[in-house]
């Protein structure tokens, strides 16, 4: 479904609008911008926190505890998007106010805080959660109180809730195109699957293994290590013995840093691609901790890299650095988090209402041409159509994009034949 654009802002908003365009040149295609803010009683029939000139949303991430490392970028992206939307005149003539809650890397806390946001603050939307565990913890609450969550992380799939819009990739969108690429372009035949021991790496490797075996190729090893494991010398020896063409690594957190440092120290030079390292868990954010010199030469399959060249992304990177400092890097999830407020804005404007049920109905088919990753569209299953890209790690911590799929890849959270 395509919605036509009506780019005729009212005169009193025009200056703000144009100013917004100049300083923060991200704009949404889908804009049913109205000439005067519609009355609150019309756009809010379910008692959400909407007044005549403001609307309240929630941001729910861990800013303390072990996940703060990863979630900080998402918080920054969501705040930037909200500020940009406000500078352009807000949503339905209303400025967005956010209430930020800290999930503290603790899943029951996430549940408690989401209940507070929905029941007490009556927020119109929540941008948040990062790990699957935190999403699973808040899911029953969002369904019970009929909230809307914009969830940014790439994840294992196997879920589709009417109360969540998944702005990251589900597993098949990240895995299949990546494996196809190394098989076709690097002649890979033998794979060694490696991951941290929890649901996302295990589900992802299951899909990877099925796909590799479908192609008639071989998995020579599959290994999992507890979260926080710091000694990888034994598995590196095992890899050396099995001589795979590809190490498919889904290691996360502090283990990630240990794994790549030790791989490098053990004499596996990733730039020689013997074996080649393909990962779906290392974004530019993680490389800050790993150190570019320790991972140069590895490949990553993502939908977004900071080095992507298009007008949207250049404007986004510039605005992000201006807001949060020049040293900052932007990873895949940060970009997906940035999409959340924009997709919500598009849905609200299409529905002409803040009501959750109307937003849900308006969301499928919504498209965003201003996304830093390019064009995205919401699938009826609440995930995004997006491209898969392969990045080649440079020593300065950025990726060179060496491949992108021609078409948008359809999200398929319940892939048949892969379970």
């Amino acid at each position, binding site marked *: 479904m395509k919605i036509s654009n009506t780019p005729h802002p009212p005169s009193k908003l025009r200056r703000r609008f144009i100013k917004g365009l100049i300083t923060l040149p991200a704009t949404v295609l889908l804009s049913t911008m109205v000439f005067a803010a519609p009355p609150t009683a019309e756009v809010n029939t379910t008692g959400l926190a909407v007044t005549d000139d403001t609307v309240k949303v929630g941001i729910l991430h861990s800013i303390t505890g072990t996940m703060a490392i990863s979630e900080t970028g998402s918080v920054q992206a969501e705040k930037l998007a909200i500020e940009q939307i406000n500078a352009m005149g807000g949503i339905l003539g209303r400025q967005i106010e956010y209430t930020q809650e800290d999930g503290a890397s603790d899943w029951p806390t996430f549940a408690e805080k989401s209940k507070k946001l929905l029941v007490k603050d009556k927020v119109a939307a929540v941008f948040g959660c990062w790990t699957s565990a935190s999403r699973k913890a808040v899911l029953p609450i969002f369904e019970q109180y009929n909230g809307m969550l914009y969830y940014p992380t790439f994840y294992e799939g196997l879920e589709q809730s009417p109360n969540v819009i998944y702005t990251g990739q589900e597993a098949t969108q990240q895995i299949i195109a990546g494996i196809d690429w190394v098989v076709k372009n690097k002649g890979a035949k033998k794979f060694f699957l490696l991951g941290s021991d929890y649901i996302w790496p295990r589900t992802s490797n299951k899909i990877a293994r099925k796909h590799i075996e479908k192609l008639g190729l071989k998995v020579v090893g599959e290994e999992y290590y507890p979260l926080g494991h710091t000694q990888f010398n*034994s598995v590196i020896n095992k890899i050396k013995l099995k001589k795979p063409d590809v190490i498919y690594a889904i290691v996360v957190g*502090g283990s990630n840093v240990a794994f790549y440092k030790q791989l*490098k120290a053990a004499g596996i030079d990733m730039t020689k691609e013997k074996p080649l390292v393909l990962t779906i868990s290392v974004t530019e954010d993680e490389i800050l901790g790993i150190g570019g010199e320790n991972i140069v030469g590895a490949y990553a399959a993502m939908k977004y890299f900071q080095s992507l060249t298009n007008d949207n992304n250049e404007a986004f990177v510039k605005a992000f650095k201006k807001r949060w400092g020049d040293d900052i890097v932007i990873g895949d999830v940060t970009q997906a988090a940035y999409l959340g407020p924009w997709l919500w804005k598009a849905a609200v404007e299409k529905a002409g209402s803040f009501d959750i049920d109307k937003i849900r109905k308006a969301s499928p088919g919504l498209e965003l041409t201003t996304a830093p990753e390019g064009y995205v569209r919401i699938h009826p299953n609440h995930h995004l159509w997006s491209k898969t890209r392969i990045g080649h790690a440079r020593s300065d911590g950025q990726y060179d994009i060496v491949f992108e799929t021609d078409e948008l890849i359809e999200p398929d959270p319940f892939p048949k034949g892969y379970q």
Partner: protein
Amino acid sequence: MFSEYSMTELTSIFAMQGFAGLLLFSVFVLMALGLAIIFGQMGVINMAHGEFMILGAYVTYLTSLFFSNYLPSLFGGYFFVAMILAFIATFTLGAFVEWAMIRHLYKRPLDTLLATWGLSLILQQTYRTVFGAREVGVTLPDWLMGSYAITDLIEVPINGIFVMVLTLFITFCVYLLMQKSKLGKQTRAVVQNRAMAGAVGINTEKVDRYTFGIGCGIAGVAGSAFTMIGSTGPTSGQLYIVDTFLVVVFGGASNLLGTVAAAFTISQAQSTMEFFLSGSSAKVLTLLTVVIILMLRPQGLFTLKIRR
């Protein structure tokens, strides 16, 4: 599982595996020595041990930044300066913590557990505020990177050798300190009988402060060394704390030799099993073995026979 490999390949892999085991052993000894002094000699359950290690790692990070910005010509040698600074910083913080908190709790050992756990949370949040929630990358000097190839298959990581040599050196220093020096003799006297030690003129408060400080200082040096093989972030210390306690308790808390023996047993068992099984099951089996041995021998592998 080995039928498809040639003899040379197998020999090389087993040699590499032996080296991996020794490296794990050095890592365990290095991280456990500081705790062995604090927990073993003083009976203080220091839950903030990991955070002292990470303080050392952050000092290393700052030193590397300083050298790369102001003394780039000397960058190759910064690691030694960093380790000394890490020792000084963690020693100072340790002595301060002992003075402010621990000394009030010597008669309530279980309360030290809670107090030091609280301290670990405070330190984590402090690191997060000061250095940011993200992990920082510590750049190594070139000579510490890469590996030394003996044959095609046998490649020895240079930073691994560095960790081993450092562990040997620190263990030797700790041995001299505890067995030969005046402070070591006083420490052992205080551990055995605090009242009597005080009566013969030992300044027990000072001994406590130095001992705790030295334990923390060694943790700092370990943290500094671990920037080569692991991550440096506000909560990275948590990655080490379980293994550290495991080694110290398994070895018999009051004996440094026991710590070394326990580190050797656990590291060899774990690295061998990791090779033949998968990572998670190796960990489960290691923990199970330790639990069973501790059930049979609750005092740990080695104990001092003293009259209490």
